[in-house]
């Protein structure tokens, strides 16, 4: 989550104070991502250092200090909007690791492990859906964030379903011992994303 660029985006409307920035950020994202004031100010300081924003007051540290976006800042924001996030290297997903571990451990039913996670994710989705149900139609930002979360969780469910199906087929028709080639192939990829 790039707080940096979110603040730059908020400042592109016009100069704002730090507290004001925090409030607007939370409003726009439907309060899904909480932000503390310290995080705001640290980020603003880095932005100022990089010359992307400039403060309005005279070095007056505190909540009354206003910030304005610079030309460089606007250019940086425009570039960022159009730069796709790095999706080439797989994230080190804990759920995937858990299932892989369960696969190797004797005495563990992998499909039960999968089902535990599936149920948990569906419960999470139920809660998100309830939030969506309660939201008003004009809370666009909030609804978009909830949708994003639902689709992300949905993708997890789909992966779990696919894994379940693969495991079920494996159980029905056991192949030659599971290939250890899986890990090396993954490791060979460079730059595992955080």
């Amino acid at each position, binding site marked *: 989550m790039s707080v940096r660029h979110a603040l730059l985006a908020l400042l592109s409307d016009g100069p704002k104070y730090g507290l004001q920035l925090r409030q607007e950020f939370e409003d726009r994202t439907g309060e899904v991502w909480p932000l503390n004031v310290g995080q705001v100010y640290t980020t603003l300081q880095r932005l100022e250092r990089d010359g992307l924003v400039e403060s309005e007051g005279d070095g007056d540290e505190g909540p009354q200090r206003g910030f304005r976006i610079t030309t460089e800042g606007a250019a940086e924001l425009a570039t960022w909007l159009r730069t796709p996030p790095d999706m080439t290297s797989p994230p080190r997903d804990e759920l995937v690791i858990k299932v892989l571990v369960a696969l190797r451990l004797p005495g563990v039913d992998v499909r039960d492990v999968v089902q535990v996670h599936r*149920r948990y994710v569906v*419960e999470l*989705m139920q*809660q*998100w859906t309830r939030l969506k149900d309660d939201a008003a139609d004009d809370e666009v930002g909030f609804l978009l964030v909830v949708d994003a979360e639902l689709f992300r969780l*949905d993708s997890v469910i789909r992966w779990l379903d696919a894994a379940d199906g693969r495991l079920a087929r494996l159980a029905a028709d056991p192949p030659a011992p599971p290939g250890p080639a899986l890990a090396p192939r993954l490791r060979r990829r460079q730059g595992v994303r955080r």
Partner: protein
Amino acid sequence: MSALELRDVSKVYGEGANEVRALRGVDLSVESGALVAVMGPSGSGKSTLLTIAGSLEVPSGGEVLIDGVAVSAMSRNERARLRRRAIGYVFQDFNLLAGLTAVENVSLPMELDGIGARKARVAGMEALEELGLTDRASSFPEELSGGERQRVAIARAVVGDRHLLLADEPSGALDSANAEAVIRLIRAACQRGVAGVVVTHDAQLASWADRVVFLRDGRVVDQTRPPDGPESLLAPKAKS
């Protein structure tokens, strides 16, 4: 008393080498006003569960109770009557009878029950109005969009005093916006007191349900716990 109760229901298709055990001792209870989603991979028996719950098929073992009455004790005709008085179906893609307008499709179950055409039409129009389809009442199925067709099917499933709504992948052929509209309507019907069962493999659709039942190889393997409330999801500060 549950609107729908399945007790140790099993279903076997074929015989001998071709025997397929679609359901193996399923227990399920759906209260009035509750929406239950049944999730499972294809071949898990979830569609069979729905057809047995809706008395379209007879279970090989176990008992189905609708409003506390055992279906197995009923004759074919009594089951038909039960379907048109208590049960509404929504299928994936084929729901409406060509040759009948939207409102005629909706009021057909009532007419089958011997209610006069005019009275049935009034009830049908009411149901369509609920779903915001008044202006499409005289359209034939092929003049309706996919989403509209599913909405008409939902109106038909709840018209009259029907209080058990069974849906099999009701949003299967629809885009996400229409899919959400359809499941919202089903949920709204449940909030008015209808007991609903949605069979799906779509987690987003299932997440609208009060309870999600997981089916695998003809058995109920798991179900969700009652939700704690949305707050738990967000950071303590978020919903200040």
